[in-house]
């Protein structure tokens, strides 16, 4: 599982940093390093870009896993440099930004947009395969989630926009229901496609979702 991120346009970052002169930068050694959006190289590049617009970079670090609890000691280690900044620019997914915000009193500014939780299909190619809806039906759809893979999230078969196995919104995108159909057919389980799927329960676990393991 990887949180897939993309760097915000530099103009937007610049605007968010408008009232802050001294910036501490934090990257993440896990997902954002793999997606080349918040690893050491990108953090150093950001440092140099900020210096070019006359920001003072009070320090930087790349936390091994920004979203876990080991982030707290990492924040302690960098306490002085963080105290010496007006804000912290974070090059991790939003989970990391959230986690860091609970440990420090400086304003947190995300440098990345969190796009989706995805898998790496081929080197450098990430795909969203699960929307974390809380009601998994992929046992009946040959492992392909139509809520995620179909642009409209349809659960009862293809729409009229399906076109030679591609989707109406993008000729490069596969039609989820053609993929599901082909797999189910190969498995001799097309009867599953004939099954009526009722409306989704969007309140199966009302937002914000929490779980307590006992």
């Amino acid at each position, binding site marked *: 599982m990887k949180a897939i991120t993309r760097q915000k346009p530099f103009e937007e970052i610049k605007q968010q940093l408008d009232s802050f002169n001294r910036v501490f930068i934090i990257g993440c050694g896990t997902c954002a390093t793999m997606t080349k959006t918040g690893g050491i190289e990108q953090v150093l590049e950001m440092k140099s870009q900020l210096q070019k617009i006359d920001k003072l970079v009070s320090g930087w670090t790349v936390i091994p896993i920004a979203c876990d609890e080991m982030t707290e000691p990492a924040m302690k280690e960098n306490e002085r440099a963080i105290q010496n900044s007006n804000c912290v620019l974070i090059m991790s997914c939003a989970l990391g930004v959230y986690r860091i915000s609970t440990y420090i009193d400086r304003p947190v500014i995300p440098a990345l947009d969190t796009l989706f939780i995805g898998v790496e299909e081929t080197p450098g190619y990430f795909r969203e395969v699960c929307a974390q809806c809380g009601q998994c039906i992929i046992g009946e759809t040959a492992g392909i989630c139509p809520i995620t893979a179909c642009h409209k999230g349809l659960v*009862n078969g293809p729409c009229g926009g399906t076109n030679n*196995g591609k989707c109406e919104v993008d000729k490069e995108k596969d039609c989820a229901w053609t993929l599901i159909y082909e797999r189910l057919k190969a498995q001799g389980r097309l009867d599953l496609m004939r099954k009526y799927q009722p409306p989704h329960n969007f309140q199966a676990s009302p937002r914000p979702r929490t779980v307590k393991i006992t």
Partner: protein
Amino acid sequence: MASSFKEALNSGKFVITSEVAPPKGTNLEKVLHHIELLKDKVDAINVTDHQSSVMRFPSIGGCLAIKEKGGEPILQMTCRDRNRLALQAELLFASTRGINNVLCLTGDAVPVGDHKEAKGVFDLDSLQLLKTVRLMESGKDLGGNDLDGAVEFCAGATVTPEAQPLEPQLIKFEKKIEAGAEFFQTQGIYDLDNFAKFMKHARQFPVKILAGIILLSSARMAKFMTANVPGIFVPQNLIDELAAVPKEEMLNKGIEIAGRMIATLKKDSICDGVHIMAIGKEEVVPDILAAAGL
């Protein structure tokens, strides 16, 4: 009381429907003119629902205008813009205004339209919407509550006989029938042999099929639709037929082709009727009917 459209479907006659598109804005002049032109010539008129995901005057508003003029409307409802509360509310409202025909559609995707950043709702899909209509007819809503006054609809859906691959489309077609579809208006068809094959399959089921006839206004349009519109395939001989006439004659040729197709479908009893889509040229629908000998 059954709608006059439902009576027409069950009468065994060759049923004709067409459609009008509401305006982007409050100027209803053109759509009212089209309604006036069509209301006595067809069995029912569909009113499109933000077709191609382009924001417009609502389908329900167009249906009310048809009622006011004494015509028979078919309310098109897509699942793209409303959640299940809003869809059910609209069915209640339609029912109280004598709008008793509904075409249940998934709806085009948001990015193909003119509000590209909007949220696509799709809380229900076309099948679930059909089931909802039937549930509300039994006096219940989707929350399991009793309705004080139920609805009554002649409910239909769409199918794409030229879809590739076809089998998933046919599976969904059957699911729609199980969900309560009484009639289908198909995506535009041009290859009558292919369509006859589809009809052979469809005839197994107790539903009425109205073949989608999209007016070809030029050879360029025919080529464009084949290349870009999912499920539309215009055979080369029809493109050649259009291309062989001077530009100013192409529309008349398109009318002739549409009329000829309708006449064949009727003569050979291939299907139960036609749904004519003139897409911006609604004023020539009477000419298409005349060309078909209707």
